[in-house]
């Protein structure tokens, strides 16, 4: 029977199936960070268990780390304790760890692929919902809770039921000014924040094939914002070229044998999908979110909705709440909305390609008066690469802050957060109420759109600047 990419990876990792269909699924890679692991390690210690496969595990601190000078450690006591707890745990359990001061430190979803730890065909988990990012390599990658983190540490497996298959096919050339971020925001706008619930989304079509790995990771990263547990893209030569030479990837003849296997993974012709979504790339326009969930998006040429036009009372109440929280007026044009802060970074858009796109807009321009603009590379290696290309100078000359790697203002667990009422143009993934700081307001958009907002002081169609 023809199988999908998801089916093939799933089948290859089933250790055993229980009577009710629950599978014991083998996990190839487990990424660990400081926020969702302390209670898992504590559970292991209390039960006298060990980490079954330290060599399949990688730990890094990213959520709490300051993005300023790290020579003085972490000032906030709770953040410092959480990172210190991770350090103590990786030492006690012998788990590979990248220290905060190491040049390879960064957001777990940036460094996994970057170091070759995440590879095609693997099952990859992490106590973080944006683990879906790694699906861009053609792996089955999904976020788990802390109890499951402990389960994987102890057994290298998870108890799972198979997901349904959803195919999202995007065809055609991407119009000027549009990026992978605009594709995924448009998809979420179309299927909704629960549209992918119970599914794994496979992204396919000529538009997806034409994306580089950074773009593919941006798309897969936000699968969870559509409710899908995972998103994946069939591995191809773009994938194999990306993997080649990375430190934890197979090398030489071993890599060639790996590629031979990876070439068997793409979905078979005639494979069954439970649902199908088709997007015409030609119809895409740079996107921006107006509300407080990631389906509340419009083209930058569009307007915030008018709740009065909504017939369903529950839906109308939701729109009213979002308009009010975001301090917009019904029907307000998105372009021209003044912003206070710009955040360029995160596991969604913190890769070198994202920084290049933002820098190309920022080059020779100045951050608008009164706007605070941060650039936070996704990893120390991304930062070093950007500096070798002179991108740091482009940003600094334009008046952006150039910072150390971490999750930063995507969720404000470190000192980088919005103050109440501030409006932020952000390349991150969630625009929930208070996500970037209590009472802060988030507009999700692409890196080039974010840079355009920084230099004009308002949401703006980037196509007017290039």
């Amino acid at each position, binding site marked *: 029977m023809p199988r999908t990419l998801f089916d093939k990876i799933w089948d290859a990792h089933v*250790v*055993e199936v*229980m*009577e*009710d269909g629950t599978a*014991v699924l*083998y996990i190839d*890679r487990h990424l660990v960070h400081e*926020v*969702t692991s*302390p*209670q898992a390690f504590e559970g292991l210690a209390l*039960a006298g*268990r060990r980490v*079954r496969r330290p*060599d*399949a595990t*990688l730990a890094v601190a990213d959520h709490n780390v300051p993005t300023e000078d790290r020579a003085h450690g972490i000032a*906030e006591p*709770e953040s410092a*304790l*959480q990172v210190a*707890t991770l350090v103590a745990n990786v030492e006690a359990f012998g788990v590979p760890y990248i220290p905060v001061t190491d040049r390879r430190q960064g957001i777990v979803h940036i460094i996994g692929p970057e170091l070759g730890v995440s590879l095609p065909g693997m099952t990859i988990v992490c*106590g973080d*919902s944006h*683990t879906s990012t790694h699906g861009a390599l053609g792996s089955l990658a999904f976020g*788990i*809770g802390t*109890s*499951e983190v*402990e*389960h994987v540490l*102890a*057994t*290298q*497996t998870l*108890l799972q*039921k198979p997901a349904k298959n959803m195919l999202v096919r995007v065809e055609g050339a991407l119009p000027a000014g549009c990026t992978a971020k605009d594709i995924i925001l448009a998809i979420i706008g179309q299927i909704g*924040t*629960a549209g992918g*619930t*119970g599914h794994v989304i496979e992204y396919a079509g000529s538009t997806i094939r034409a994306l580089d790995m950074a773009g593919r990771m941006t798309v897969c990263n936000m699968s*969870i914002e559509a*409710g899908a547990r995972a998103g994946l893209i069939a591995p191809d030569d773009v994938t194999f070229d990306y993997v080649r030479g990375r*430190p*934890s990837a*197979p090398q030489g003849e*071993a890599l060639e044998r*790996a590629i031979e*296997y990876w070439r068997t993974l793409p979905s078979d012709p005639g494979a069954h999908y439970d649902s199908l979504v088709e997007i015409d790339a030609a119809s895409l326009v740079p996107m921006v979110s107006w509300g407080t969930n990631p389906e509340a998006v419009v083209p930058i040429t569009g307007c915030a909705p008018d709740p009065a036009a909504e017939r369903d009372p*529950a839906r109308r109440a939701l729109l009213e709440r979002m308009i009010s929280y975001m301090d917009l007026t019904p029907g307000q044009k998105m372009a021209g909305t003044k912003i206070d802060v710009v955040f360029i970074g995160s596991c969604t858009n913190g890769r070198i390609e994202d920084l290049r796109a933002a820098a190309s807009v920022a080059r020779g321009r100045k951050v608008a008066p009164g706007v605070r603009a941060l650039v936070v590379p996704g990893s120390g290696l991304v930062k070093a690469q950007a500096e070798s290309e002179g991108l740091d100078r482009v940003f600094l000359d334009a008046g952006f802050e150039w910072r150390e790697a971490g999750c930063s203002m995507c*969720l*404000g*667990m470190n000192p980088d957060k919005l103050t109440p009422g501030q409006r932020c143009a952000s390349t991150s993934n*969630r625009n*929930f*109420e*208070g*996500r970037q700081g*209590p009472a802060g307001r988030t507009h999700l958009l692409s890196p080039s759109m974010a840079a355009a907002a920084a230099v004009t002081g308002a949401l703006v169609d980037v196509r007017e600047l290039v």
Partner: protein
Amino acid sequence: MQPFTTLTGIAASLPEQNIDTDKIIPARFLKTIKRTGLGKNLFDTLRYDESGAERPDFVLNQPAFRHAEILLAGENFGCGSSREHAPWALLDFGIRCIIAPSFADIFHGNCFKNGILPIVLPADICAALQDDATLGGNARLSIDLSRQVIIRPNGEEIAFEVDEFRKHCLLNGLDDIGQTMQLIPAIDHYEARLAASHDWMPGVMVG
């Protein structure tokens, strides 16, 4: 894990759609290294104003619902992050059962790991239960997991579905790890097979 067999308690209604995990427990409270103590910050921004005072209109601040053990939630409850702090905060507050038209996947799974029963029911039945809940302590709901029924204050029984394995774990208070540890020989066997077929796959190298 505390077993879940039957529960009779006050139900509080929070029907808003898409209550995300940042609303259940904002990121600034995730800096703990413990599972307990999060209940005071459950729904923090909905529950307290900027000065930290309780918002009197929020359901769990109202005298009739301060001791609610059942939450009647809206569609796509628990969307967003994988943080298990969300069910930990609910449990620490005293919530043992959540009834909603739909849940986000990761949150739904996390509930079962913590002795919380999430029940999916059609929106019209959820709405009827929300009407019951307006009566506060005068209209307790009962949940019988082994029979898979909710008993309304008027005695009417509503059946619900639950995954068989998860039901077994909840009824007996079993944690997954202990059970999976019994399958170690199968895992050993799988790993041996993998090492042979995927001998190109290196370990994590960050030395």
